């Protein structure tokens, strides 16, 4: 059963609204960060590894072509 008469009362929480909502918002935001930050690090890492692979392929290409010319 919904404990409040209306939405406004739900937000005010009988005067305790600022405490309750700030506690929930702070917790929610740091917990979202906890999940988002490894995902972002993973994307960056995969991009780095991929770039290195491209560089190695390119290097092999120039090496073999220079070998051919000499």
């Amino acid at each position, binding site marked *: *059963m*919904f*404990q*409040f008469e209306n939405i406004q009362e*739900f937000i005010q*929480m*009988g*005067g*305790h*609204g600022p*405490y*309750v909502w*700030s*506690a*929930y918002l*702070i*917790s929610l935001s*740091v*917990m979202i*960060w*906890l*999940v988002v930050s*490894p*995902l972002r*690090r*993973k994307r960056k*890492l*995969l*991009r780095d*590894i*991929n770039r290195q*692979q491209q560089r190695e392929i390119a290097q092999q290409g120039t090496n073999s072509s220079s070998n051919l010319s000499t």
Partner: protein
Amino acid sequence: MSQLFSWKWFHRLGSPRWFYQTSGKWLPWLSMLATGLLLVGLCWGLAFAPQDAKQGNSFRIIYIHVPASFLALAGYYVMAIAGAIGLIWKMKLADMVMKSAAPIGAVLTFVALVTGAIWGKPTWGTYWVWDARITSMLVLLFLYLGVIALQYSYSSQDAASKASAVLSLVGMVNIPIIYKSVDWWYTLHQPATIKFTEAPSMHPDMFQPLLVMILGFYCFYAVALILNTRVEVLCRERRTRWVQELVASKCT
């Protein structure tokens, strides 16, 4: 033969590649479970649980505060046990789990402290007291931060893992102090609401959403730990063939 089998299992468990592949299959289900439980618990606790007779609505902070404190402690066990396994059996995966557990534990301890402080203002009239429970939780936060700092203060990963494992094992001393602090020094923080040995001192209408939130936090912790460990696996194994192939197949 059975001996051989069990060791195979042990080695496979220690294989970062096996972990990466298996956790990848589990992750979507676990994330859905965590999100579902947390959403249900959040709505139930915020809007549908009855308010406390003495504390009014500020008591709703309990639905974050208690689960976060639970996981801050459970996360310390995970970190210390992983550290011990890494020290004793030199299991690489255990070192990675230990490193990944530290920031998650630190964040959850921070959440427990902050929500406790916010809750303290309307209930006790102050944000902070040097009460035994609060002080020992602050020590826990510093232990987590110490492990994080040690991870970055050595150029060799092996030395960093060893040092952080030793610190987390020494820090285990703090855990029983946190548990017992409310009984040993009866100051401001109230005694535990939930005990394994007796019925909870809470009305079922208030207790059920708390249980949902605790389960949700456990699942959330597992998701966060797996996500962090997977990045660590990729980072440390980036020279191996399977990671190279994985990247090549993903990026083309």
